[in-house]
């Protein structure tokens, strides 16, 4: 029979308590030596980074052909529907005819006096009357569409791109009302019958969501320049507005540029050399 004194009991209890406290520490040390067991989600190494992406469009380099090429490159690769085409009768039988004026566009040409209504002077230089001005989502620093979106389907990414999560869009179209640039379009119907050639590298949209330019986030992630830049023959430059050494900032320092509807305070990130 063992007789335990209170003293020896407390000694054993104390050692046991230390042992229990040490176990988690030992486990942690052991797991660290094996490398982290949690999955990792990272950006691609080749991805292009910026603090705030911006776009500069040199309107003097824009010709009708270049504008068409840019629109085409953007819309084809993003599976933007074209409601002027006849849908494939076999594949999409029973497609309702399109109501006139329905369109979806990510980047398009606009007359100066529509693109810059606050800059229209009585005696505007002649050339501005027929120059094609390319307009798209301005990826505003202070985007009203983001504030309007009730589901956070539209949001501003940390690199300044105003982008949509189509999964979350409930089709309320508040963002369309909020955007002063008309950069957003609603899919009133299934867009698929009106996509001539579906690009497998980008999803289509479904009926009932709003869509707009995403500044080719999917290409920036692969280290490539946006489609519009590649098709623009030097007319469009996309770069980091917050980096004073970037090409776009050098160009902005050299040229007089304007932005659309600056007075609204949305701080557009698309600049125009005129």
């Amino acid at each position, binding site marked *: 029979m063992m007789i335990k004194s209170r003293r020896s009991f407390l000694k054993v209890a104390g050692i046991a308590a230390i042992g229990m406290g040490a176990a988690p520490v030992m486990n942690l040390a052991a797991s660290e030596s094996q490398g982290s067991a949690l999955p990792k989600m990272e*950006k691609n190494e080749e991805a292009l980074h910026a603090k705030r992406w911006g776009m500069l469009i040199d309107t003097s380099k824009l010709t009708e052909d270049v504008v068409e090429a840019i629109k085409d490159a953007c819309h084809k690769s993003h599976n933007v529907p074209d409601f002027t085409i006849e849908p494939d009768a076999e594949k999409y039988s029973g497609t309702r005819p399109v109501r006139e004026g329905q369109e979806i566009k990510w980047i398009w040409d606009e007359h100066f006096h529509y693109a810059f209504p606050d800059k229209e002077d009585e005696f505007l230089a002649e050339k501005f009357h027929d120059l094609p001005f390319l307009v798209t989502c301005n990826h505003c620093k202070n985007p009203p569409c983001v504030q309007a979106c009730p589901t956070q389907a539209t949001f501003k990414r940390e690199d300044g791109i105003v982008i949509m*999560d189509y999964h979350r869009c409930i089709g309320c179209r508040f963002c369309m009302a909020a955007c002063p640039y008309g950069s957003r379009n609603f899919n009133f119907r299934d867009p698929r019958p009106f996509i001539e050639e579906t690009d*497998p590298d980008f999803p289509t949209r479904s009926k009932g969501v709003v869509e707009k330019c995403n500044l080719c986030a999917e290409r920036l992630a692969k280290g490539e320049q946006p489609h519009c830049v590649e098709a623009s023959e030097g007319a469009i430059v996309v770069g980091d507005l917050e980096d004073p050494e970037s090409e776009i900032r050098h160009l902005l320092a050299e040229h007089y540029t304007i932005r659309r509807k600056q007075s609204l305070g949305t701080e557009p990130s698309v600049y125009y050399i005129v």
Partner: protein
Amino acid sequence: MIMAGLVVFVLAVLSPFWFNLITSTQAAPKPELLGKAAKVKKCVLDKYEMRAEHMYLLDVWRDSVVRDAARKYTGTNGETFNMSLSTGENSCLGCHEDKAKFCDSCHDYASVSPYCWECHTNPKEIE
């Protein structure tokens, strides 16, 4: 009289069993590993986790890609994947080439209709 009623009652109560006896039931189809997936045999998670959790995984992937621009996933098994349903070699469909036999067969059996393919495209279906 009571006995006859009881017999009818028991027959009626056990009707689901009679129904099963006279109809044939299909076993749940197994997702088929074809092409690249059959060779590589290393998925994002292990088989059973993948069966039970793939929808949650896709949900996490979606948020990561769209919101954080993080498109590269390194799993606990050390393999790296492109977080994409259908674009590129290293995406879900890049490896599991046959959507009908891999996704649809189970989804049809379980009577779930995920709306992934309303927007995402199956490269095989685009001629």
